[in-house]
């Protein structure tokens, strides 16, 4: 077909689009909206992407390099020219079994200052950036954990790492710069003071600052000597002697006259165990051949993996979304082609052949696709520009700049264009095959869909489903899943005329309005089919998602374990806390509100304390499951480390074998006195339970764990690497009383005396209270977390850790 013919076709398509404004707007919107989303995402991503220099400035201010210790000072490291991505490798550390050379061992013993002196070029100035610590600090209303750092913000080397929003830089001890997020969260202002935990000197806030890479973090920048005081106070609070503060996080390095830190200097520093981020090297990276890391097979063997499931899901979602648009926009083009049937007939009568007719209909795909794509891109780009501030605080980092990448946007535009074109293909072919006289006279015949089409469609549905399931089964077939889904949906499109025809027979039963609509749909199956298939696929997708959602919801509910009764208050100690500190903490909580009598919970261990700092061996205590209660699919009853299936989640025999974090630090059996029982198990307990506990009987919350009135505890010694030594596994049997509390936080409770008599040891774990005003309902469903940070908000959602269930607090609803 000649180019001028295309031009004529496009002219007709363009004018038609303008004449049928409503239909054009519909198609343009269908194409523009997804394009808008993608374009906005692209512009946001590209704008948030930093140039290496911008990143360098955020990390090292105006310094020439940022010096960090590799895995161990003195051990040789290999690094990428740009170590931002974490591309470093310590040969000595290679296979997780450290094997440093003699030289490296002797170097590691040397003081850090000497190592630095040898590793770095002469004359370099170093400004240490101390380790940041997350520490509680006082606020207008209480305390707030804040990331506390210490360096001189007035030093020119740090310029660019932190932006001054208001106020003036701290100039000496006693002054502090606070992030705007901290000021907002703490309710403090410039001029007010904050006191980090453990210290008594208030620090005056002189500056509101912004970390361009961490807009939302609560951060404080202390004067370096103030940070030292704070860290020292932290270290004296714990058991044992005060520990040194540890090496700094890194150093800002300035070469004499800012002459730059060369790649050779980097390689030399690597020999001594330092990883260098050098501005000069970032600017002008060395060739791969000069980078030992790129040559080291040990590093490459570590392998880098991407998540195949995420890729599969993404590819399927994007591919199916495109197909949906094609299927939904297709009927609009089909309607357009039908409406302009006489016009197409006139073109044919005037000498247009099939290609010309196709070109006119395809031309409307091009026109609308292009308009939709351009509209989407323009609106998306403008939206990002307008919402930049919001997006930055949402992502927590300032953009490097507003960046439009022509290649990206051109690609997105092409996708929009192709979508429009694809949607117009079938109507174009249909229109071009239309007989000229039929087009001109408007005579039309409703043909039954050919049987082969329906059969082919059914086969495609079956085959596509099979292919997609194959992709799911192998777990790494994103193309299978996408291809299968598309094949199945196109098969559904092919079947739909037949199905619509079947439905058409029901028309007789319907009142006039629906009957007309149904007849119209059956008469125009060509354009009904894709729309029906698109709705079908969308519904199928929604059903799949909601089934998944409700399944995982059910699993979460089944896995949920409360930590205590509704309304109870719990203070959990750090295992490193001294008894004096525990007492002080418990006293502080006791005095802060009218909580009623306190109960104490002890954790149990067998011979060796698992929470001791130098945990060489560890003796765990668990409740033994009767042999009849076996977790299916787990060898020797232990499913730990293997994937958890739905069956296992709902089977309580598996509960003890699964990683059980959340409720009471994962302890299944604890020691406590009768006083703590209401707070732990909920009110309404038979008083005899407390008496039995005091008398040395174990209280068991799950009847299936008790055989012949006794419960068995497994005592297991494991070595430091987590492996069990079977020879040192033993059991003890105790008299047991069942208190039926199916969703109690623990499976069994002993009195401390009974625990000791059974050969176990105890250590304080927590204090609990049940305030008299609190509901005394049994801890059957849910309870608000003691310090999850949202008790005041209605319907607050919380999650103790990623594995713990997310449950709405019932008491908070009322």
């Amino acid at each position: 077909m000649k180019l001028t013919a295309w031009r004529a076709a496009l002219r007709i398509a363009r004018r038609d689009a303008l004449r049928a404004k409503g239909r054009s707007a519909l198609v343009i919107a269908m194409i523009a909206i997804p394009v808008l989303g993608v374009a906005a995402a692209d512009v946001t991503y590209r704008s948030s992407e930093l140039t290496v220099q911008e990143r360098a400035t955020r990390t090292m201010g105006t310094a020439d390099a940022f010096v960090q210790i590799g895995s161990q000072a003195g051990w040789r490291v290999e690094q990428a020219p740009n170590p931002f991505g974490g591309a470093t490798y310590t040969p000595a550390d290679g296979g997780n079994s450290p094997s440093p050379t003699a030289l490296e061992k002797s170097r590691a013993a040397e003081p850090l200052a000497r190592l630095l002196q040898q590793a770095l070029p002469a004359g370099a100035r170093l400004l240490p950036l101390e380790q940041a610590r997350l520490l509680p600090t006082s606020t207008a209303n209480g305390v707030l954990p804040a990331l506390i750092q210490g360096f001189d913000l007035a030093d020119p080397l740090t310029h660019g790492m932190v932006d001054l929003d208001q106020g003036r830089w701290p100039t000496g001890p006693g002054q502090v710069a606070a992030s705007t997020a901290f000021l907002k969260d703490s309710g403090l202002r410039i001029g007010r003071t904050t006191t980090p935990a453990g210290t008594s000197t208030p620090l005056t806030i002189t500056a509101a600052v912004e970390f361009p890479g961490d807009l939302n973090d609560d951060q404080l920048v202390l004067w370096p000597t103030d940070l030292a005081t704070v860290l020292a106070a932290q270290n004296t609070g714990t058991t044992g002697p005060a520990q040194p503060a540890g090496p700094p996080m890194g150093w800002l390095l300035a070469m004499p006259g800012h002459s730059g830190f060369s790649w050779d200097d980097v390689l030399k520093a690597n020999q001594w165990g330092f990883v260098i981020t050098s501005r000069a090297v970032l600017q002008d990276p060395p060739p791969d051949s000069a980078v030992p890391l790129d040559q080291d097979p040990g590093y490459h063997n570590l392998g880098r993996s991407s998540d195949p499931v995420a890729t599969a899901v993404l590819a399927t979602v994007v591919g199916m979304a495109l197909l949906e648009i094609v299927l939904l926009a297709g009927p609009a083009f089909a309607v357009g082609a039908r409406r302009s049937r006489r016009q197409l007939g006139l073109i044919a009568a005037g000498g247009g052949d099939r290609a010309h007719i196709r070109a006119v209909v395809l031309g409307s795909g091009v026109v609308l696709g292009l308009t939709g794509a351009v509209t989407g891109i323009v609106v998306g780009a403008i939206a990002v520009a307008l919402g930049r501030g919001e997006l930055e605080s949402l992502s927590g980092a300032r953009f490097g700049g507003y960046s439009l990448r022509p290649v990206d946007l051109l690609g997105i535009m092409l996708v929009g264009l192709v979508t429009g074109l694809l949607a117009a293909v079938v109507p174009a072919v249909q229109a071009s095959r239309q007989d000229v006289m039929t087009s001109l006279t408007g005579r039309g015949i409703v043909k039954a869909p050919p049987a082969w089409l329906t059969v082919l469609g059914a086969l495609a549905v079956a085959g596509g489903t099979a292919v997609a399931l194959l992709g799911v089964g192998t777990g790494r077939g994103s193309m299978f899943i996408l291809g299968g889904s598309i094949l199945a949906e196109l098969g559904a499109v092919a079947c739909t005329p037949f199905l619509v025809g079947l439905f058409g027979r029901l028309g007789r039963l319907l009142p006039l309005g629906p009957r007309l609509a149904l007849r119209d749909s059956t008469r125009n199956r060509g354009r009904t089919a894709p729309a029906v298939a698109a709705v079908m696929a969308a519904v199928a997708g929604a059903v799949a998602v909601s089934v998944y959602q409700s399944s995982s919801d059910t699993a979460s509910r089944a896995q949920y374990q409360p930590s205590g009764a509704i309304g109870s208050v719990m203070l959990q100690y750090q295992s490193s806390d001294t008894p004096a500190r525990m007492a002080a903490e418990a006293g502080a909580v006791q005095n802060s509100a009218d909580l009623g009598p306190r109960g104490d919970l002890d954790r149990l261990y067998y011979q060796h304390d698992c929470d001791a700092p130098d945990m060489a061996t560890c003796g765990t205590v668990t409740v033994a499951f009767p042999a009849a209660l076996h977790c299916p699919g787990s060898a020797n009853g232990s499913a730990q480390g293997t994937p958890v299936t739905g069956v296992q989640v709902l089977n309580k025999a598996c509960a003890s074998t699964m990683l059980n974090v959340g409720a009471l630090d994962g302890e299944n059996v604890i020691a406590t006195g009768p006083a703590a029982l209401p707070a732990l198990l909920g009110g309404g307990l038979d008083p005899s339970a407390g008496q039995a506990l005091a008398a040395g009987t174990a209280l068991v919350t799950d009847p299936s764990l008790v055989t012949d009135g006794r419960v068995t505890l497994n005592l297991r010694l494991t070595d430091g690497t987590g492996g069990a030594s079977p020879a040192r596994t033993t059991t003890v049997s105790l008299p047991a009383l069942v208190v039926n509390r199916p969703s109690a936080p623990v499976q069994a409770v002993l009195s401390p005396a009974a625990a000791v008599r059974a050969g176990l040891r105890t250590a304080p774990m927590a204090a609990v209270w049940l305030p008299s005003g609190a509901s005394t309902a049994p801890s059957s469903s849910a309870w608000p977390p003691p310090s999850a940070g949202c008790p005041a908000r209605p319907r607050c959602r919380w999650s103790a850790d990623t594995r713990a269930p997310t449950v709405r607090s019932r008491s908070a609803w009322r």
Partner: protein
Amino acid sequence: MLRLASVSRVHGQGAAEVHALRSVDLEVRPGEFVAVMGPSGSGKSTLLTLAGGLDSASSGQVVVEGTELGALSRKALAAVRRRSIGYVFQDFNLIPALTAAENVSLPRELDGLSGRKARAEALAALEEIGVAELADRFPDEMSGGQQQRVAIARALIGDRRLVLADEPTGALDSATGEAVLAVLRGRCDAGAAAVMVTHEARHAAWADRVVFLRDGRLVDESARSSAETLFSGVGPDGTGGL
């Protein structure tokens, strides 16, 4: 220019079989203006669609400028329609999305002529018809008579020498109809050939020759002079005088 040799056209099958044309012979020479008359359903439109290559004959031959249409591929047939034959229907002849000049130049552009040349030809064709001032108007900004004249211009653009007009004046008042016929007459005098279906004897009087169809059969042919005498007392559908 145009020759039909024992052309028949059967629509449908079995009980629904309709013989729209039965063994029709007709020859139209360059410069000749032929009117086709006959009652409704007699096969007039069918005759024109077969002559114009829009439909194919069940039997017989249709020859346009020496080319037998039945032997052509679909593509070649479209090319013949593009280059040799122009169609004028009763109404809605023009593509609403295009201006008069664009409508006229469309067959030439589809044929691959550059936009500028096609427009020049279109303007010349409009000029010949005497409606140059309509060039940049859209169809809905024109009267019915103007639209028909533009359609005639389109039917004769480029090398086209054969106009097939199916009741071109049917939707016009009589004065406007006369003006349109005058245009057709003028083009035939300038060397084109025209076949026109009409119900009105007065309009048929513009033709060199009138042919009559009844039940798909060519029943009579009369020269212009005899036609004038013949139609002195005919009914509106042209049947009364036979």
